[in-house]
């Protein structure tokens, strides 16, 4: 295979390029291969890319401004709309950041359930990469195979949260609800068959000659450049840097699990593909361990500043005979009201980063003591990763740009925020 790539390199050298008549081509903002509303202004010499400038902002909704105008609880649903392919991950990351700022410790069961949600989200997101990445290059079959498992994950999320997308399931100090037995059984059933499914994608792609030709030695970025550019997540690991926040800065309950950090060697599109494939297997391992070791107990923290009281304790209305529910008390209703209108957090600031499916997702929250954040900074992995597009695509063919876009695996909701 290396021979084939060599041949293509030779082609470039004799390609007639007077460098006088460059062509400017707009890829996007409405183009299926740009995975959203990304516009890339490509300068071409013949079919060779001389420059590629991503133009972002078409999906800018001002999430950070909204984060500074809403109470801490109200902002949870907005985090869903950042990386909408792995919404749960964003919600949980945000809630963990607020918990860190307010000094709330969640119970172990909640941590484990969050790990399960995180890893399911990660698998779902990587499946989108495998499916659409292959589809962009022309391998339509993989798309259907990947979507089949993604559908199953979405069904599981439907069982757990009641939604297929944009769950809003995480809460500051816990989760909206405990998992049902049915949901846990569904996750178990999924983990049992998923490794075999990954074998299936690998069977279709890993040794596929066309996939090799389109991905090997394309979009190469070496480790020092990748680090200097600020890359994180699978894009950084594809270049051979073993950095995973789940291992290096453990949050939730990740220190309890045994898993490996897959890394690439040369940092081309194929390495990034292999990293994501193996990460799905590792995520599956984590899921299995989380189900095996799932502790019992509460899912909500003790801290009543942020945690809603149990519903049956709320004094809301009496029945038709004028009898109030037995356990209901007025104090809990007042507590509920105070939580909903927002509890203040002591002045301070915190940066909390998690390993999202795309890389390092960080929340930098500055509190001035009120019930709204003074600064809600979202450090999104896709935004920083997208800077690598130009160096990766430069000197390659226009068709390689599609492979590079797919392998960077960004989500525009998170880039533009």
């Amino acid at each position, binding site marked *: 295979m290396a021979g084939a790539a060599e041949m293509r390199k030779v082609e470039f050298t004799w390609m007639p390029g007077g460098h006088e008549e460059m062509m400017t081509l707009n890829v996007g903002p409405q183009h299926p291969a740009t995975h959203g509303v990304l516009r890339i202004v490509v300068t071409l010499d013949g079919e060779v890319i001389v420059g590629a400038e991503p133009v972002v902002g078409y999906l800018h909704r001002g999430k950070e*401004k909204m984060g500074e105008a809403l109470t801490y609880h109200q902002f949870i649903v907005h985090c869903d709309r950042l990386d909408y392919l792995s919404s749960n991950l964003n919600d949980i990351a945000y809630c963990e950041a607020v918990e860190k700022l307010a000094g709330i410790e969640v119970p172990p069961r909640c941590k484990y359930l969050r790990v399960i949600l995180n890893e399911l989200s990660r698998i779902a997101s990587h499946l989108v990469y495998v499916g659409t990445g292959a589809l962009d290059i022309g391998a339509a079959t993989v798309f259907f195979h990947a979507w089949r498992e993604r559908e199953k994950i979405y069904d599981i999320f439907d069982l757990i949260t009641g939604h297929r997308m944009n769950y809003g399931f995480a809460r500051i100090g816990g989760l909206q609800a405990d998992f049902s037995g049915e949901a846990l059984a569904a996750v178990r059933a999924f983990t049992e068959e998923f490794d075999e499914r990954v074998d299936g994608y690998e069977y279709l792609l890993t040794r596929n000659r066309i996939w090799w030709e389109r991905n090997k030695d394309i979009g190469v970025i070496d480790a020092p450049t990748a680090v200097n550019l600020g890359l994180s997540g699978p894009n950084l690991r594809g270049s051979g840097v073993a950095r995973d926040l789940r291992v290096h800065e453990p949050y939730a309950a990740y220190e309890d699990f045994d898993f490996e950090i897959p890394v690439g060697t040369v940092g081309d599109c194929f390495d990034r593909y292999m990293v994501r494939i193996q990460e799905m297997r590792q995520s599956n391992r984590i899921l299995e361990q989380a189900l095996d070791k799932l502790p019992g107990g509460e899912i909500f923290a003790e801290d009543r500043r942020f945690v809603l009281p149990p519903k049956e304790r709320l004094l809301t209305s009496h029945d038709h005979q004028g009898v109030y529910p037995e356990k209901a008390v007025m104090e809990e209703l007042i507590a509920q009201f105070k939580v909903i209108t927002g509890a203040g957090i002591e002045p301070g*600031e*915190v940066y909390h980063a998690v390993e999202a499916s795309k890389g390092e997702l960080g929340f930098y929250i*500055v509190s001035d003591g009120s019930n709204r954040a*003074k600064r809600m900074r979202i450090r999104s992995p896709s935004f920083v990763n*997208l800077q690598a597009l130009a160096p990766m695509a430069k000197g390659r063919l226009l068709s390689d740009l599609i492979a590079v876009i797919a392998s960077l695996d960004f989500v525009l909701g998170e880039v533009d925020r």
Partner: protein
Amino acid sequence: MEALKDALREKFGSRLVPLDGAKDMEGYQVPAGLLLPLCRFLAGESPVRFEQLTDVTAVDEFPGEPRFRLVYHLLSLSSNRRLRLQVLLGGGDPRIDSVTSVWAGADWLEREAWDMFGIRFEGHPDLKRILMPLDYAHFPLRKDFPLRGIDPGRHYREWDRGRKA
């Protein structure tokens, strides 16, 4: 941990003020003129190398003065540590040296800080708006920018006028 502190004290003396309040990571308040030499030192010479710039952002302290608090989050992959740098900038004409020459990844982060807060990064290769339209006149994340925006229908009206003409 001590090695870095000692090296910074030796090199920059008392001009760096440690930030004690934060619980999540250590940090320093840096005079604006010292930022670029400090970043060069941290990325290339210090005992703990900060190979990656994770984030650049600002906090608007409006109506307080100095108005902007520019915050840099640095990451050392080799020793798994983070560092926060903070620069205070006045509200009149906030400018600071760009660190793109140290970390290439600062490019878009600084463009975003310019776009959202109007902080000028001198020496940046191509400082222009990134999320807002290129001809936008305001800085949305400043505290005196209203939540509903300023004249949000402008683009639609211009488009509509063009359509009818």
